[in-house]
């Protein structure tokens, strides 16, 4: 019994002595920290996800305070924290183009066929080790939820056998992209409305056998795109998001519906007749001939033809065209 007491007392005593020594030393060697760092740190979400490229939120805060990182460098905090940090630093925030992660596969249970029944560990990485997963298509989403577990923001759920990412919750931290064994998650602009939702690099015939909604490489979309935004490589259509105007023609023309578009949010051009001078510039720009009217006449948009690409609005010298 007494040995326990001596052990506790002596070790505890040692600890006390060292602790007191350190307390004195910390007073003597106190270093003043830049108060900006603490304020910036307070404006950050504190997830320590590392998406900014710095080791944790503390690292980012130090970098911002010393001017080495942009105030809007935190993709998780987004605009809200960028404005707060900008206030602390006394600069304008400037909004970075928001991006979100998106699963580029529509191979749900009814669309994509299975080559065998998988009953192993319910994890995409484990499943992909067995003949590349149970889906016949070796490029598709396996839907076992490895990304769901990796997402710290609860933005991913499995719907009908494939992962689906909620763009409102997604913070573009990139954790899901890292863990996905199929690389079927892509980073896309937040306000993009059209996506090629197929990841398969196989030839059209093979794709058709395995999935009813895959890209078969017919290149109809490439020809249909009025803006040259559709690229084609490795048997797969790919949208150049910088050129795309979300006109959704490609999605209309796609024979397999592999191109998904948010048709509900499609806009229509509208010409303000008071401002229009009848210059016909818009008429020449329109890729679908939806604008009528001769020179010096007020132009009119045929609503059923308009695809809402905005090409006319961009070129109108009088800013008479709005997209609604």
């Amino acid at each position, binding site marked *: 019994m007494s040995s326990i007491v001596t*052990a506790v007392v*002596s070790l505890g005593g*040692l600890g006390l002595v060292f602790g007191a020594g350190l307390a004195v*030393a*910390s007073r003597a060697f106190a*270093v003043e920290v830049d108060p900006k760092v603490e304020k910036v740190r307070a404006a950050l979400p504190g997830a320590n996800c590392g998406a900014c490229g710095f080791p944790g939120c503390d690292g980012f805060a130090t970098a911002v305070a010393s001017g080495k990182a942009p105030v809007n460098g935190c993709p998780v905090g987004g605009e809200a924290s960028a404005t707060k940090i900008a206030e602390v630093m006394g600069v304008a925030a400037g909004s970075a183009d928001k991006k979100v992660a998106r699963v580029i596969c529509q191979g749900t249970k009814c669309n994509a066929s299975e080559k065998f029944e998988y009953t192993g560990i319910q994890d995409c990485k484990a499943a992909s080790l067995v003949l590349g997963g149970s889906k016949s298509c070796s490029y598709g989403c396996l839907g076992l939820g490895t990304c769901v577990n990796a997402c710290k923001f609860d933005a991913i759920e499995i719907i009908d056998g494939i992962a689906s990412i909620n763009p409102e919750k997604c913070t573009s931290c990139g954790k899901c992209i890292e863990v996905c064994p199929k690389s079927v998650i892509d980073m896309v602009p937040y306000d993009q409305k059209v996506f090629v939702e197929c990841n398969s690099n196989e030839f059209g015939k093979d794709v058709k056998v395995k999935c009813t909604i895959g890209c078969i490489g017919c290149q109809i979309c490439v020809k249909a795109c009025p803006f040259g935004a559709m690229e084609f490589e490795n048997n797969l259509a790919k949208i150049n998001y910088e050129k795309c105007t979300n006109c959704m023609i490609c999605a209309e023309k796609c024979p397999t519906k592999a191109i998904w578009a948010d048709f509900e949010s499609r806009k229509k051009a509208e010409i303000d007749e008071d401002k229009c001078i009848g210059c016909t510039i818009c008429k020449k720009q329109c890729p679908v001939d939806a604008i009528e009217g001769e020179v010096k006449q007020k132009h009119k948009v045929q609503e059923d033809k308009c695809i809402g690409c905005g090409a006319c609005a961009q070129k109108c010298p009088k800013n008479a065209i709005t997209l609604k």
Partner: protein
Amino acid sequence: MEFITILVSAILVNNFVLSRFLGICPFLGVSKRVETAFGMGAAVTFVMTISSIITYFVQKLILERYDLEYLQTIAFILVIAALVQFVEMFVKKASPTLYQALGVYLPLITTNCAVLGLAILNIQMELSLMKTIIHAVGAAVGFTLAIVLFAGIRERLALADVPESLQGFPIALITAGLMSIAFLGFTGLV
């Protein structure tokens, strides 16, 4: 004469890094530049020397007197941890650049096995206080010597034409192995 023997033995023959393979972590981690390597060596030297003295007294006055030898590891770790904290505060105040350069490796001296290894070896070798200090200084100088030499080689390696598959850490590890073999040549010196 005995002091010189202990000193030479600790620096060259039984070099902590290259013969005893203790403290490999900072040896590989902080050896990219000679300057920071030297700073690391200086910090380790300080911690090693002071911790050896304190652990000597802790062992003789507390542990042995009350038959608490079984608490040696935890008591020594306590001493080392407190000392490293102190060194960290001091370095942060005295040289912010060195503090930045050492980064995470400074608090990691706490878990540097060379420091704890030295403290335990001192007790095992049954050295007197004077010899303990000499041994500690020798070990620390040996550590500094090894890490500074290694950093010097790595600085030149950075400019050398290294085969692609060996660039970076692989060639560093090979270099460390060759250095260790070279230090083997000191065997039999004392």
